[in-house]
């Protein structure tokens, strides 16, 4: 394992120190437990908090700032943070208006965040959780822990953050969140495996011309292992998996998010995005907004994911609203 780190045991805190130094105007970092909160003191509306294992940067820590998250709780690499860390983020950001916790659907995250929400509620705060489970790779969700939360999380955090920023109350923020969760689907593919610092070896083995289709963001296995194919065929496979799952019909408006899993060059990510745009156009689906780049990653894993969100006027307005975070920024 070759990594630019000092010690696997301190990698998350060491990295947060760099984030804090780089973006002192946007975020404040507290350590032990590790949390990232907004540097400004926003008017006390609803606060939006998310978190999960580290190693998916910029998710979630890079999305703290005006118009998006009030707090992020980075756990150890690929491991959910514990309830006390989540509670610390709640205490640091949450007032009368309450908080919404955005939780990716992994057993660990759900158990830890729900425990924290319970404890906060016991202290009289109105804290609710929304669980995002957008990964269509998990086919039969009754025989499993359910679909995983993946790329849709980025869109959810942006949109919910905008709703909170404009002053929506917790009911309204929660209802926007549930609308996004219902309307978003994703699929991922890996070309290589990530290496967790404290493990020191790649999380899985993949042949020289194999890809893992339906990969999660922790190197969990996907739907199937396939021989590598041209980008055109791969994008078709990905777009079909999502469109058929909805199913999406002609004339619908969508946001298309083509994401790098971390190690894939932007050259390839844009290439795949261009193909997906044409495949959707061929189906009569209107791409009205897009996001392209590494926003929810799996360390150095090469691969991409695609996420499609069915848009309406309300979501479009919230998507377009200004945002100012380390990793996502427009309008201010």
């Amino acid at each position, binding site marked *: 394992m070759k990594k630019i780190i000092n010690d696997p045991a301190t990698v998350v805190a060491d990295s947060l120190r760099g984030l804090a130094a780089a973006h002192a105007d946007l975020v404040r970092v507290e350590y032990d437990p590790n949390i990232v909160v907004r540097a400004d003191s926003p008017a006390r509306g609803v606060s939006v908090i998310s978190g999960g294992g580290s190693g998916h940067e910029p998710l979630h820590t890079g999305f703290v700032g005006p118009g998006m998250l009030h707090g992020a709780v980075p756990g150890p690499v690929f491991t959910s943070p514990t309830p006390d860390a989540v509670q610390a983020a709640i205490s640091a950001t949450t007032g009368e208006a309450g908080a919404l916790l955005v939780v990716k659907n992994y057993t*660990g995250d759900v158990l830890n965040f729900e425990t924290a929400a319970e404890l906060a509620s016991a202290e009289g705060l109105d804290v609710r959780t929304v669980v995002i489970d957008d990964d269509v790779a998990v086919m039969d969700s009754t025989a499993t822990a359910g679909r995983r939360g993946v790329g849709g999380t980025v869109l959810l955090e942006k949109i919910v953050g905008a709703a909170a920023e404009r002053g929506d109350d917790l009911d309204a923020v929660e209802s926007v969140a549930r609308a996004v969760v219902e309307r978003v689907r994703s699929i991922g593919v890996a070309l290589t495996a990530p290496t967790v610092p404290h493990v020191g070896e790649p999380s899985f083995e993949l042949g020289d011309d194999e890809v893992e289709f339906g990969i999660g963001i922790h190197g969990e296995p996907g739907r199937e292992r396939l021989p590598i194919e041209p980008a055109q065929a791969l994008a078709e496979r990905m777009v079909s998996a999502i469109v058929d799952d909805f199913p999406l019909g002609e004339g619908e408006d969508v946001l298309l998010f083509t994401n790098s899993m971390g190690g894939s060059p932007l050259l390839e990510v844009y290439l795949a995005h261009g193909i997906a745009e044409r495949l959707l156009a061929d189906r009569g689906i209107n791409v009205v907004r897009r996001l392209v780049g590494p926003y929810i990653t799996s360390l150095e894993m090469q691969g991409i994911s695609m996420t499609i969100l069915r848009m309406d006027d309300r979501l479009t307005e919230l998507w377009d609203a200004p945002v100012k975070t380390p990793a996502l920024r427009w309008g201010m």
Partner: protein
Amino acid sequence: MGCTANDVAAALRAAADTVTEHCAELTDLDRPIGDADHGENLKRGFEALVETLDEAVPETPGAVLKVAATTLISKVGGAAGPLYGTAFLRAATAVGQAAELDASTVAAALNAGLDGVVARGKAEVGDATMVDALKPAVEAARAAKDDGVAAVLSAAADAADEGATSTKQLVARKGRASYLGQRSVGHLDPGARSTALLLRAFAEAAR
């Protein structure tokens, strides 16, 4: 004959040693069907627990178990943290203020732990989780409760071993491994294995 607070603390230290020793093994089990962190997660939690116990061992067995619960909840993370944490929390409640634990209290504590895991995680036997080790362990413990604490724990450990092994044949239906579907068959569940290891450490400590 019964277990004092110090005995429980000693059992937890023994468990911590086992976790350290088997850390790589547990992580390796979590690699093909999970995210390769189960060993690290438990090690982080049990090391913290040992540090806490080094400072002071609480007065009662129940208080020791409660410290274990809160430490594991705040240090382990992942799925295993809240699950094991809840198990110890329920066990602590089950043993109450007793100064010493007899065999049937130990069996009852194990049962309470199982109930906690099931309440949180909603897994059943056959889902290929720690429940596949813990449920038979609880049943074996109950059957041995007239033979003393050591016998209870050793029966539990034996049954847990067997239960853990059974997960190899199963299709996982809870936790990360469930994403694999049929591909999870042939793999020992890391949480079931760690449950068996913990119970074995407790049993050895009680001899």
